[in-house]
């Protein structure tokens, strides 16, 4: 047993941290936050050059073939830096869907393009209110033609292709859902940007009108593939959330050491110290749950569904907790646009919804624990 990242993986983390500190300063994030660019194109290019986009993509498809533990390490740094790029939608969702279910030709077409930064991908699953569930998929596919509207689609306005969940049956079961690959630049789609909680990662509405699409994976297998994709993404997002939690805690700690009130550093007041200690506690629990998720993901263990849900819940809670208390530690300054606290607050709360809400994952976790206990 060894419950830690290897020295090589830690080196990769240091490398990613250094790179992002240089290329992804809060100032750079603000360019996207202020609406001056849909995402940071320079950074995206740099990430590709560093090999970070394809770190878990096999070499035969143009990636680095390192693996998912390495991707977890990078995800944490992406979260720490609050990177304004379509990383999660492209790398965790689109690439993972292709890795799980893509044909050789589909992998050859899209995976190298992802690794090199030429293609941005996303997953089009949601259709308005509601959590992931077969009954919430109304968009239809008939004879390879899609009709319906998806929203919100993460990074939909900048994506080159999408993995789309569509209804192909009417039994009301999981088997009604199939996945399709759509080249968003090929016509038949109408994309509209939506304003959202976290402008550093865009959301869009995509309308498919008699849009030609190729199946991804076998017909009727869509829901089972989606479940696997969401589980993997849950672990990877958890690492982003852990990175964000740690950064928010660090910002709070630094400010508490700097700011003087009543003739003392505010960090010497117990109410403030204890608030920061509690942030440390939730960030630590989230990190530990995420490590377990990383192990399950990297070994494709039978524990993955349960581990993914636990990592997701724990990391969502921790990031929200740390981000909100970071503002509190900063007092009035924390509530200004000027200070960076709100960027993490936005990201924390947007990420809490991205793969389905907390309530959804709580439900999933208990289901999965019951199944395990029954087995």
């Amino acid at each position, binding site marked *: 047993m060894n419950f830690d990242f290897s020295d090589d993986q830690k080196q990769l983390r240091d490398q990613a941290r250094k790179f992002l500190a240089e290329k992804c300063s809060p100032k750079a994030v603000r360019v996207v936050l202020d609406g001056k660019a849909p995402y940071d194109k320079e950074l995206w290019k740099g990430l590709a050059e560093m090999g970070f986009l394809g770190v878990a993509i096999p070499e035969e498809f143009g990636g680095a073939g390192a693996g998912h533990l390495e991707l977890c390490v990078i995800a944490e740094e992406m979260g720490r830096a609050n990177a304004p790029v379509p990383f999660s939608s492209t790398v965790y969702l689109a690439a993972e869907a292709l890795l799980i279910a893509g044909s050789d030709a589909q992998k050859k077409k899209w995976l190298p393009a992802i690794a090199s930064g030429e293609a941005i991908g996303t997953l089009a699953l949601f259709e308005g209110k509601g959590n992931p569930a077969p009954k919430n998929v109304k968009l239809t596919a008939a004879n390879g033609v899609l009709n319906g509207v998806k929203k919100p689609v993460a990074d939909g306005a900048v994506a080159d292709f999408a993995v789309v969940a569509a209804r192909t049956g009417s039994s009301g079961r999981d088997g009604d859902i199939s996945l399709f690959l759509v080249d968003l630049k090929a016509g038949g789609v109408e994309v509209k940007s939506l304003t959202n909680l976290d402008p550093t990662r865009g959301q869009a509405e995509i309308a498919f009108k008699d849009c030609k699409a190729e199946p991804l994976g076998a017909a009727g297998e869509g829901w089972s593939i989606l479940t696997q994709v969401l589980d993997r993404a849950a672990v990877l997002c958890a690492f982003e959330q852990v990175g964000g939690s740690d950064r928010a805690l660090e910002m709070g700690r630094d400010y508490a050491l700097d700011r003087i009130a009543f003739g003392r550093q505010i960090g010497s007041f117990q109410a403030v110290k204890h608030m920061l200690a509690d942030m440390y*506690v939730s960030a630590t629990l989230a990190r*530990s749950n995420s490590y377990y998720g990383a192990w399950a993901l990297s070994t494709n263990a039978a524990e993955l569904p349960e581990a993914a849900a636990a990592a997701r819940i724990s990391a969502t809670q921790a990031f929200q907790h740390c981000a909100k208390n970071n503002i509190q530690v900063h007092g009035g300054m924390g509530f200004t646009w000027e200070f960076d606290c709100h960027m993490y607050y936005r990201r924390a709360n947007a990420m809490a919804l991205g793969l389905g809400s907390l309530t959804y994952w709580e439900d999933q976790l208990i289901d999965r*624990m019951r199944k395990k206990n029954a087995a």
Partner: protein
Amino acid sequence: MNFDDTPQEAEFRATARAWIGANAPKQYEEELRKSSLGRTALKNANILEVAKAWQKKKADAGWACLHWPKEYGGRGSSPIERVIWQQEEGPFGQLSRMFIIGHGMCGPTMMAFAREEHKRTYLPPLASGEKVWCQLFSEPAGGSDVAGLRTRAEKDGDDWVINGQKIWTSGAHYSDYGILLTRTDPTVPKHKGLTMFFLDMKSPGVEVRPIKQASGASDFNEVYFTNVRIPDHQRLGEVGDGWNVSLTTLMNERSAIGAAVSTGFPELFEYCSSLMLDDGPAIEDRAVRSKLANWAVKASGLKYTSMRAISALSKGERPGPENSIGKLVAGSMIQDVATYALDLQGASGVISSAEDAELAGRFQAMLLRAPGTRVEGGTDEIMRNIIAERVLGLPGDIRVDKDVPFNKIPTKGRG
């Protein structure tokens, strides 16, 4: 990152499993399995006797205090082997809770500060459970503020003479030895005038009076010292260096308690899996599931946090102040879990007589024991201070008595 056993670990596991299978006191297995915080007594046997017998059997076969050096009664095992042993020992491990203070705190302190001949004399019977140890730190005037203690030790020839009173001393009523923190110089600031000893609890002048606890049990005691003589060679560390010595004890205490602390989650999950509410099974109720999920991730988070600590230990890193997290999280969690389990039972949750108690009783016992968990071994507030100061590097609390000679410090809050 790897959760699987290495070949050596697998071999160790198989050997441990076989030995436990052949030797554990199986007649108590069911009862031990059903026990939880606050409810570890055996119905038809004295748990201390059962625990001592099991510990002795383990020691004779080389399975006691696994991580201790062999010459002191241990096995010289790696931290990971210790975890494997705990997994395999399962419910029988509950029995070693009787020795947690001796094994977790007194032993390591002796190992760090006692003379070699004393280590060889006293540690093996501590490891084997033949001799039980207690920790005599807290006093009416000094709990969180341990360094505020007043029990005096005065040099008289080759002996020290002890006078004063300790309180909350767990297990003192069945202990053979204890480690004792005293004041040897009241004219210097409080941290500088302390000295540590170990002593025979049967020494003349030691009087132990059990205290009835809020939970109804009597696990801790008051201990009075009247002209108790301790030979100088039983001193641990230098005269006046007792604070440093006690820090070693407290650090070990945190990891010993932190690793062993229960959360109540497995009990609650099991309970909700069978409980019927008005609208159907509890586990299918949305509100119940949300509560369960929140506690599930705390329990797993703690479990994997301690695994990370063990991975660090096995790479030669020392247990750090971050170990305070275990007791801090689990203490209030078990209190909340117990409260919620009783809430689910509605009005009948209050009953603790025979049949009704079968389900509620477990959580009632937890509820009544939990407040102690949040106080013993450092209160929640002290744990948060430790994390804030020693992990996050925030400033220490303002200490108005820091540089004042101990005998000049005010002793009352009001009036």
